[in-house]
């Protein structure tokens, strides 16, 4: 989808720098994400992808720079940004069911002192259906498989009806069915004009399904459409030697995957 030119950028990062106790995790990142775009954030382990998302959520303080959502500085908006973390830091033994967790997506819309209405329940039901976990609705969250838990938290993000959705590595550690469901959800979100930022190590997925790619390695290395950004030079620049080149199969020369399952320690760029 071509970004609507008259819409202001939904998401603006302006010279964003994040420092963890003296260690620079993100340095001077500037980017504008247009309305309804689907953006892949790609970079090696420790590149600052999760940090970028946490900064966008206001979960880590900015050392310098500013973030604007709908032109408003971070913090002045309500709950229009949904976030699916890389690792959920929830208490898995907590007595909540899948439906309870998905209903938590509605809490921001409900506001104080209000109980869920029939409409909220319908939205929860629809989100569960979309992720194919309606039959698990009454199961305790701790009794699910890892993939089912992932689906639950994605369903919660959908129930939140966000304008912007941040998904931190949703493609890692899932089976083909969950991957398929996640891609379907992405298509649904595009129809609903939701801006999606998604981090991944899978360069082929990034090239195939995304309008824009951010190559990140502490600094923003490149940002643009995949065919411009994902060139052998930029990939090597981002990942160092940590890339496997696959034989081209009639699809042009850009078939690369970053090895993320067991990266060789010494080849990870360390530029501290």
């Amino acid at each position, binding site marked *: 989808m071509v970004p609507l030119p008259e819409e202001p950028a939904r998401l603006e990062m302006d010279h964003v720098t994040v420092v963890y106790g003296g260690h620079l995790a993100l340095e001077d990142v500037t980017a504008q994400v247009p309305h309804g775009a689907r953006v892949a954030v790609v970079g090696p382990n420790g590149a600052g992808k999760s940090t970028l998302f946490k900064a966008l*959520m206001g979960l880590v303080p900015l050392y310098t720079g500013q973030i604007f959502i709908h032109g408003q500085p971070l913090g002045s908006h309500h*709950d229009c940004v949904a976030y699916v973390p890389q690792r959920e*830091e929830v*208490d898995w033994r907590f*007595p*909540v069911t899948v439906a*309870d967790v998905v209903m*938590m997506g509605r*809490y921001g819309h409900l506001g104080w002192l209000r109980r869920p209405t029939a409409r909220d329940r319908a939205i929860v039901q629809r989100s569960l259906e979309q992720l194919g976990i309606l039959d698990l609705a009454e199961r*305790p969250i701790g009794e699910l498989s890892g993939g089912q838990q992932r689906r639950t938290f994605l369903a919660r993000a959908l129930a939140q009806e966000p304008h912007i959705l941040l998904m931190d590595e949703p493609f890692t550690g899932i089976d083909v069915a969950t991957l398929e469901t996640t891609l379907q959800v992405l298509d649904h979100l595009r129809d609903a004009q939701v801006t999606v930022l998604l981090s991944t190590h899978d360069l082929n997925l990034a090239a195939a399904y995304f309008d824009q790619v951010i190559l990140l390695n502490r600094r923003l290395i490149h940002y643009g459409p995949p065919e411009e950004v994902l060139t052998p030079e930029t990939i090597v620049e981002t990942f160092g030697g940590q890339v496997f080149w696959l034989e081209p199969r009639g699809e042009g020369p850009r078939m690369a995957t970053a090895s993320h399952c067991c990266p060789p320690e010494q080849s990870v760029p360390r530029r501290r």
Partner: protein
Amino acid sequence: MTMLLDWLLAPLAYGFMQRGLIASVLVGILCAVVGCYIVLRSMAFLGDALAHGILPGVAIAYLLQVNLTIGALAAGIAVALGIAFLSRPGTIREDTAIGILFAASLSLGVLLISTIRTYAVDLTHILFGNVLGVSPGDLWLIGGLACIVLTTIVLLYKEFLVLSFDPVHAAALRLPINLLRHLMLILLALTIVVSLQIVGVGLVAAMLVTPSATAYLVTRRLSHMMVLAAGLGAFSGIVGLYLSFYFNVASGAAVVLTATMLFVLVFLLAPRRGALWPRRRSRS
């Protein structure tokens, strides 16, 4: 049948027993509901620490000849806010803050109490509880505070739920996390103060933890856990008080031991959490 009825009604002929029963049911419910969050966030230590942290307040109130409950209330809220202050994000962990304040205020309490020559009856009641000494005024105070705490927990159910289950999502929803944390600590402090007269400083933690832990074993939603815990707490309060009346034993201890018996029973019937439920489901 009439014998059982007589047995049940006989204690109610006494005003102090009526008040004691009402008070222990209220405290049983209150502790159990608040205790659900204590159990789920693994903060049993916090409950105990707050209870002991109240000691210096009580001692000071005694020395100044003011109402002991007011002293306890002030000390409880001070310790709760102190814990919140010391464990702000980016400083020390919450349990460390609790440990420091716990030790400090317990020592201060012991120090102050040791200056009191005549080891007064009132003070031992604060330590071990005296449910049979509940005056009508005390009962109003207990009832009023219990109402405030329970109403707050019902009204803020979803906020406290999301905050304890998933703080990151609470932040994404832009909830005032620190405010809610402090409020939770204050509710806990109020609960402990209310409970002191019934079970005493030493046994408050047990009343907070035991019925909720029992309910946790057999429920799969927080709301159900709270309701069941409240029922168990109230039941323990009643049974404990009858035991105390007929066998002439310390009431607080009897209440706590009843709650513990219930826990053991449920624990044995459902050895692992929820172990009982899948089996039942497949049979039906």
